[in-house]
């Protein structure tokens, strides 16, 4: 998967026709093999752009900040990113007419060790669903499969799971990088900030991490697109996908809903209901 040439051509064309003010893409870090997102403002910088299987980040995230608001933006989206973008469009966070979207029919990106990333192996919709131009050939929807880590944890006893998750919440340093890297966490004021640092009891405690991560994952339940930007941003590599994947599993098994953001106007599982939803857990 290497679309470097095509993306440079398209970005160059858009700048020379004056269709966009900013192009969001990927470039090399300059000191290793990895790539970082880059915002390009002029035609002469277009040759920095890249797209290979190391282009892991979700660029839709950069649309929620002030410097791209009300500007004409061109960007690259993979399958998962395009669904996040679709949700942002549905929730009125960006305007479609301001965007020029290059969709990718994604073949999966790599993780830190160079293998195909777990979310790409389990990906249900690798093709971009909203685009002006599609690169690559679309392969269509795939079957839902339960995440391997979730299956493993479900077999453990309750006390084992308590120990496992206590370690995770204890290691969290409350840097909020997960929240800032999530394209769907765009609230200007976030409710989890009330557990923030004070003089007498710091923010960096197990209980405040529990409060923040659980609230965050439940507010994203039914909307998470499994791009794993949060996990890539986490400085201590916490397995944050566990919380999202469990929500996804429960929602799929009970409400037969998955793949939020497939069409514009679809707001996810928590914005609709069915009269036949399971009722047996209620007294």
């Amino acid at each position, binding site marked *: 998967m290497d679309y470097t040439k095509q993306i440079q051509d398209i970005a160059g064309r858009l700048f020379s026709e004056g269709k966009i003010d900013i192009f969001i893409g990927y470039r090399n870090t300059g000191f290793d093999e990895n790539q970082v997102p880059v915002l390009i403002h002029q035609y002469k910088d277009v040759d920095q752009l890249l797209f290979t299987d190391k282009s892991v980040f979700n660029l839709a995230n950069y649309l929620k900040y002030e410097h791209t608001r009300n500007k004409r933006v061109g960007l690259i989206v993979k399958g998962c990113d395009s669904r996040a973008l679709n949700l942002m469009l549905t929730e009125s966070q960006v305007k479609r007419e301001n965007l020029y979207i290059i969709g990718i029919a994604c073949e999966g990106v790599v993780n830190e060790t160079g293998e195909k990333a777990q979310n790409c192996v389990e990906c249900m919709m690798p093709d971009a669903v909203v685009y002006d131009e599609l690169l690559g050939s679309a392969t269509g929807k795939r079957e839902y499969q339960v995440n391997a880590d979730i299956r493993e944890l479900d077999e453990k006893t309750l006390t084992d799971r308590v120990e496992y998750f206590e370690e995770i*919440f204890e290691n969290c340093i409350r840097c909020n990088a997960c929240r800032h890297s999530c394209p769907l966490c765009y609230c200007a004021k976030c*409710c989890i900030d009330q557990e923030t640092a004070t003089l007498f009891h710091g923010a960096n405690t*197990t209980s*405040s991490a*529990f409060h923040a991560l659980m609230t965050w994952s439940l507010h994203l339940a039914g909307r998470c697109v499994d791009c794993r930007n949060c996990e890539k941003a986490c400085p201590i590599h916490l397995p944050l996908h566990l919380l999202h994947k469990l929500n996804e599993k429960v929602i799929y098994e009970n409400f037969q809903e998955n793949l939020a953001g497939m069409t514009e106007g679809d707001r996810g599982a928590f914005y609709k209901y069915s009269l036949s*939803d399971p009722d047996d857990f209620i*007294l």
Partner: protein
Amino acid sequence: MEAEIKEKIVSMEKPHMEAPPDWQPVIMGILCNWCSYAGSDLTGTSRIQYPPNIRIIRVPCSSRVDPWFIIKSLQTIADGVLISGCHPGDCHYISGNYYARRRFLVTKKLLNFVGFHENRVQFSWVSAAEGAKFAKVVTKVTEDIRKLGPLHLYKKENS
């Protein structure tokens, strides 16, 4: 003189932690204004006995309950949470409890996944005419939580 031998109560999630001998469970009850709150009122005016362990908060509708409320309750004083709303079809706002039902299931499963016993968070439908049912529900939830013991997971340090 025969001394009564009391069974020691330990925390379900952390079996090495014992409850103090005079421990009483605290249950946070979040009730919908239109059905369950009126139902609990009827329980009182009908003079039906129920355990005094429940602390009631009134909300406009069961769909007003953000999962955040449950997390905050469990982190402060509560050992368990009971959320109650109108029966399906009876919602004052037509469909609020249907949306709430989906959210409750996911919240319950996620809390169970990270280590809370599934009986820590319970839900019920109680209508304004079901005073006796409210007393029954509170009794059941209190007994469930009493069996599970005090909650020691992720409590706020200064609470």
